[in-house]
């Protein structure tokens, strides 16, 4: 069990999505946030996640977070952690009529770059879409790894944003090469940059998957009691072992040379971490094609538990776990097991949203309950 937990003790929102202004005092263990559809339950979790990650895990259009018709929004959270308490705040402001939004993050009142906020309040999120994690396309699995990575190693967030940028530049150049036939002499410089950041991302992700794999396998046993092994492994599109950054960079460069004509014909970069995946095998077979629906659900829960335990091991405190409307999709047994593992054995703070009241269920007896109605959240009495 981890030495302690990280918990958001108080969350304040100002003009965030449909919340004009709200203050919620959360409990240290399970918090159940109930409400009808479209009242603001997901928005509340999104606010907490955005504060922790400095960007929304739900949208890349930051302007969507600001209440319609308003110029700015703010989120503030008091975070209790073993090392002491901190207050994180994030303010987003629209820049005139343009779609651009400026963001200011502060830690204990002092402005800080995003990279020094990451990891101060580690979070694990479980959205309804995550239930499809096994079956979904690879980008869902890459996103899971990347969100975990940037919290563990904030400098990876810089490599990821550089990588996205150079990918866009390189694809634009490939496009011009195909349509206008010139630009070839500049390609090498962008290819090297792509390989430089790409190698770091691939190696970091691959090491992360190696760390998650045994945790996920153990968690699956806790959950389902089955004896088939769950094996997670990182699959790089350039077929590299990805244990060394320099070697991985050389492998990437060689792969770009090998795929040069394909890239030119399609005008996109076909190799690199944006094409990589995490393979999930159960009992030696691909879980995607052979695991039952129930098994796939259990695997997803096991991966989420692994994420949480890895973060707890590495940071010395259980992360804040958010479950958005996913409990109703789980059967009674899995649901009870998940909540008792999270709140009991792993002692994490858990924020659960639900449309069904959970007051009377045995596993929620000690929880704190809240009700959300049209952008306001109040504790149940």
């Amino acid at each position: 069990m981890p030495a302690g937990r990280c918990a958001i003790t108080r969350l304040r929102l100002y003009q965030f999505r449909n919340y004009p202004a709200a203050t919620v005092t959360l409990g240290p263990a399970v918090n159940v946030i109930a409400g009808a559809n479209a009242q603001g339950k997901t928005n509340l979790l999104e606010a907490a996640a955005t504060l922790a990650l400095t960007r929304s895990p739900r949208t890349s259009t930051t302007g969507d977070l600001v209440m319609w018709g308003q110029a700015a929004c703010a989120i503030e959270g008091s975070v209790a952690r073993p090392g002491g308490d901190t207050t994180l705040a994030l303010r987003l402001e629209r820049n005139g009529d343009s779609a651009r939004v400026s963001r200011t993050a502060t830690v204990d009142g002092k402005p800080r770059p995003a990279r020094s906020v990451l990891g101060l309040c580690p979070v694990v999120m479980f959205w309804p879409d995550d239930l499809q994690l096994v079956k979904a396309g690879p980008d869902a699995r890459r996103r899971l790894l990347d969100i975990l990575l940037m919290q563990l190693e904030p400098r990876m967030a810089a490599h990821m944003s550089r990588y996205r940028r150079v990918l866009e530049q390189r694809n634009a150049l490939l496009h011009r090469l195909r349509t206008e036939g010139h630009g070839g002499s500049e390609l090498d410089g962008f290819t090297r940059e792509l390989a430089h950041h790409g190698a770091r991302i691939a190696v970091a992700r691959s090491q992360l998957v190696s760390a998650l794999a045994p945790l996920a396998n153990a968690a699956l046993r806790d959950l389902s009691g089955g004896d088939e092994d769950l094996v997670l492994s990182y699959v790089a599109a350039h077929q590299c072992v990805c244990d060394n950054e320099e070697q991985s960079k050389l492998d990437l460069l060689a792969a770009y040379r090998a795929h040069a004509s394909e890239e030119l014909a399609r005008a996109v970069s076909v190799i690199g971490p944006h094409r990589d995946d995490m393979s999930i095998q159960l009992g030696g077979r691909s879980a995607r094609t052979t695991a039952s629906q129930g098994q796939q659900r259990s695997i997803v829960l096991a991966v989420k538990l692994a994420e949480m335990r890895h973060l707890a091991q590495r940071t010395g405190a259980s992360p804040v776990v958010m479950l958005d409307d996913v409990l109703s999709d789980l059967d009674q047994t899995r649901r009870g097991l998940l909540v008792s593992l999270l709140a009991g054995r792993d002692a994490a703070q858990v924020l659960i949203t639900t449309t069904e009241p959970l007051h009377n269920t045995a596993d929620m007896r000690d929880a704190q309950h809240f009700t959300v109605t049209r952008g306001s959240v109040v504790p149940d009495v």
Partner: protein
Amino acid sequence: MPLVPEAIERLVTEFGRLPGIGPKTAQRLAFHCLRTPAEMTERLGAALQQLHQQVQPCARCFFIADGDLCAICSDPRRDPALLCVVEEALDVVAVERSGEFRGLYHVLGGALSPMDGIGPDELRIAELERRAATDEVREVVIATDPDVEGEATAYYLGERLAAAGVTVTRLAHGLPAGADLEYADELTVARAFAGRRAL
């Protein structure tokens, strides 16, 4: 009728176009100008007006000049064997502040950026190539920003200048990742110069 006279609205709009100035600040500046004595706003207006009339790019290095050549190119104590390549005129100011570099400059006018349609022909690269090919020049130090575009440009210049028979070096990465030269402090720039490496 609009609440605020047209003349003020115009000024607010123009201030609002400046970098780092939002609508609220633009409004504050405009009202501040309104409160200040007329001779001060006239001085500001005159300074802005003369800017483009009196300042032009240096014919040799494209840094800003008030004559044909800039102050650096016309200084006989500068070492013409060394060329420092930067993206923008402001970067020259940053390198000069460090006091570490005694050669001449070449301002590219940006960095390669295919997304924005900026290729080698949109930058002053042909001019750089011609300068580098002269007997006078021994070393070209590439000091483009350490971001994606600056790195790709540095690599491209390294390849292209290899033919000119000069030593090409890259400013060492003492610069904080993602930092523009313009924002780097003097010491960092000085260290970067001391540790430049061959490309």
